[in-house]
């Protein structure tokens, strides 16, 4: 009874093992991965935009959310499929590798009858002379044309064995290993690295960045944006976005990391953290005074480009547009001006142009709008901010090692062939056969030529 339980245990574990070793599982996983991957290219990933969410029904939304469709490449079922692929890969390699290893390290060097039957191109040449002389002549041809043969004597017959590129048999396993190496690199990157971003205003210094998951991360050093600029082609299309960045340690600029140019496609890397030019914007400061119609009770205040201020009468104001020369928009007027939007506390809003050189127009506007508050533009401190993506990925070099291994492996798996030739030499006969792991057509041709060359070296009846 115990024995029957153990056999049935064995068959269960064996069938599980066979399941994980099976190439049908590989086919299933590849095709399933291909088909399911489509979902994430159709449904927006990450935080879907509100416009998209309006186009689908709440039931659909709930369904998508429960299956993780908005972050599908990290969903449990996608990770499960990738794990299945990895287990399949490992199991299949464990099953086959020992056999392949033996083929490489302990080659069969004697052509037995059973081996002979498996060689489709086996040819026997009838010749003259004793085995010892024939064997030397064949060995010389093999050495010159193919590879140095190993010679074994067996029952009065000589067996020659020569081979080329036996290691190419391992190439497929290098490819398979490379897939796992890339996975490991990706896992290390996601565990120990982060992605984030930071906006730095010209002249400003930062030492923290915001991660994608909204966590503040301390860089351990500081970064100052010295300058940001945009260059355009004559067509008006953008040509270059450029930040000038200085790295600071304990408040002091780091040599060789001072005034570094950072442009798209040319990032800055310091202490394993890389900063990429990604976006930019205006961060200017705009100065105004506000007074009543008589010009009394004047206050001076400042508005930053991307924020708003509360005015003395309780309304709020923010900048929409600015110009150094208003004559481009309104002929006859001169000097700087800004367009602002004012929201009054009762909910109304209006767009107003505030001039620097035309106080009379500012007063006139105030009169017409019976608010009585006169705004006067006093100029701006123009500044840009640069938006940098920040990435730290300690796993990336492992990924590159995996990629190189994969390319080398694929090349060797496809274009290198393990070729073996066996020769059996008896008194008066020479039997030759061989096989190749790849490109059998090419090998067949080579064998035919080799045979002709060997024949030329053998004492034949008609050669006499």
């Amino acid at each position: 009874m115990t024995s029957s339980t153990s056999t049935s245990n064995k068959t269960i574990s064996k069938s599980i093992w066979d399941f994980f070793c099976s190439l049908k599982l590989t086919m299933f996983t590849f095709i399933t991965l291909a088909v399911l991957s489509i979902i994430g290219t159709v449904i927006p990933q990450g935080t879907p935009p509100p416009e998209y969410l309006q186009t689908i029904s709440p039931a659909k939304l709930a369904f998508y959310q429960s299956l993780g469709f908005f972050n599908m490449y990290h969903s449990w079922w996608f990770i499960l499929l990738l794990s299945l692929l990895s287990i399949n890969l490992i199991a299949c390699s464990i099953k086959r590798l020992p056999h392949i290893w033996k083929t490489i390290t302990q080659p069969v060097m004697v052509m037995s009858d059973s081996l002979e039957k498996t060689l489709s191109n086996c040819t026997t040449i009838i010749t003259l002379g004793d085995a010892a002389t024939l064997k030397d002549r064949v060995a010389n041809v093999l050495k010159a044309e193919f590879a140095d043969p190993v010679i074994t004597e067996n029952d009065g017959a000589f067996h020659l064995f020569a081979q080329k590129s036996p290691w190419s048999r391992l190439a497929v396993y290098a490819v398979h290993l490379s897939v796992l190496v890339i996975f490991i690199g990706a896992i290390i990157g996601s565990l120990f690295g982060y992605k984030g971003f930071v906006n730095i205003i010209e002249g400003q210094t930062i030492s923290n960045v915001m991660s994608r998951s909204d966590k503040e991360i301390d860089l351990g050093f500081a970064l100052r944006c010295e300058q940001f600029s945009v260059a355009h082609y004559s067509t008006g299309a953008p040509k270059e976005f450029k930040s000038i960045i200085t790295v600071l340690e304990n408040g002091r600029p780091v040599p060789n990391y001072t005034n570094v140019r950072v442009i798209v496609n040319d990032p800055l890397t310091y202490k394993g953290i890389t900063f990429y030019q990604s976006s930019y914007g205006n961060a200017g400061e705009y100065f105004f005074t506000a007074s009543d119609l008589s010009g009394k009770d004047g206050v001076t205040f400042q508005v930053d480009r991307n924020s708003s201020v509360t005015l003395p009468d309780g309304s709020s104001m923010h900048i929409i547009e600015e110009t150094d020369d208003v004559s481009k928009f309104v002929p006859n007027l001169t000097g700087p001006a800004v367009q602002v939007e004012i929201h009054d506390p009762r909910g109304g809003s209006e767009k107003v142009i505030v001039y620097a050189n035309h106080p009379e127009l500012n007063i006139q506007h105030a009169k017409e709008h019976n608010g009585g508050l006169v705004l006067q533009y006093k100029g701006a401190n123009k500044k840009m901010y640069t938006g940098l993506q920040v990435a730290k990925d300690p796993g990336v070099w492992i990924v590159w090692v995996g990629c190189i291994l994969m390319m080398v492996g694929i090349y060797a798996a496809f274009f290198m062939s393990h070729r073996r030739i066996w020769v059996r030499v008896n008194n008066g006969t020479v039997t030759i056969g061989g096989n190749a792991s790849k490109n059998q057509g090419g090998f067949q041709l080579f064998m035919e030529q080799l045979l002709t060359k060997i024949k030329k070296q053998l004492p034949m009846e008609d050669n006499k």
Partner: protein
Amino acid sequence: MTSSLLFNITTLLYLASMLAFFAFIANRAKAFGTAGSVIAFGGLLLQTIAIGLRWKESYILGAGHAPLANLYESVVFFSWTIVLIYGLLDLKYRYRVIGAFVMPFALLGMAWAQLGLNSGIEPLVPALQSNWLIYHVITCFLGYAAFAVACGISIMYLIRERHERSTPANDQSIVAIFPTSRVLDDLNYKSIMIGFPLLTLGIITGAVWANYAWGTYWSWDPKETWSLIVWFIYAAFLHARITRGWAGRRAAWLSIIGFAATIFCYLGVNLLLSGLHSYGG
């Protein structure tokens, strides 16, 4: 512009080459097959010169860059790679009739580019100003082209294999000048053996570039994901050959589906989905 004229002539040559191959199938006169090949090689040479000229013209216009930067240029380059890979296969194996199933892809690309796409030379936007653009695009498109050739061969395989099953040894059928299904199966595999390493290299160069420019080698952007889908399909193809029950017809279908996915990866993603790779505009 002179390059534009040469591209027009190239298109006509590809049309002539395709028609010659069709005539070859119809009446089996060897001369037609030879003519098809020779015209295709002539077109390839002309197109090579035209691409070089366009490159030079872009420098004269002050927008100097390799002609791989917009949809028009990529379609033209795709056609060029298809004829190149077909040409190599033709030189090596000399199965002329395959041209009848491959040249239509090249012709379609050129005709679409010349008639339907904006051929203006534009300066490079900052995101594309990198040498990685050249490595990435060339490897990807050579891979795609090998898949196009494999797709043509797979279609021939399906026709030929059906013919072999239903009408044994009928020499009169036009299908009889096709290589045997065994040869076609092997050629299909050989084309994918060229395409798969190139696609893999294309994905890797893309990842290296993305890491260099954005700090992430993989961000599951639709284009990246589709290239991975294509890669999965051809990986399945490679394993199909050693899986019992999958070799032969199913493998040929995988090759055809793989090319359909390739085309979607190349065009569908730009025209129908959104993402970082905004060639389509």
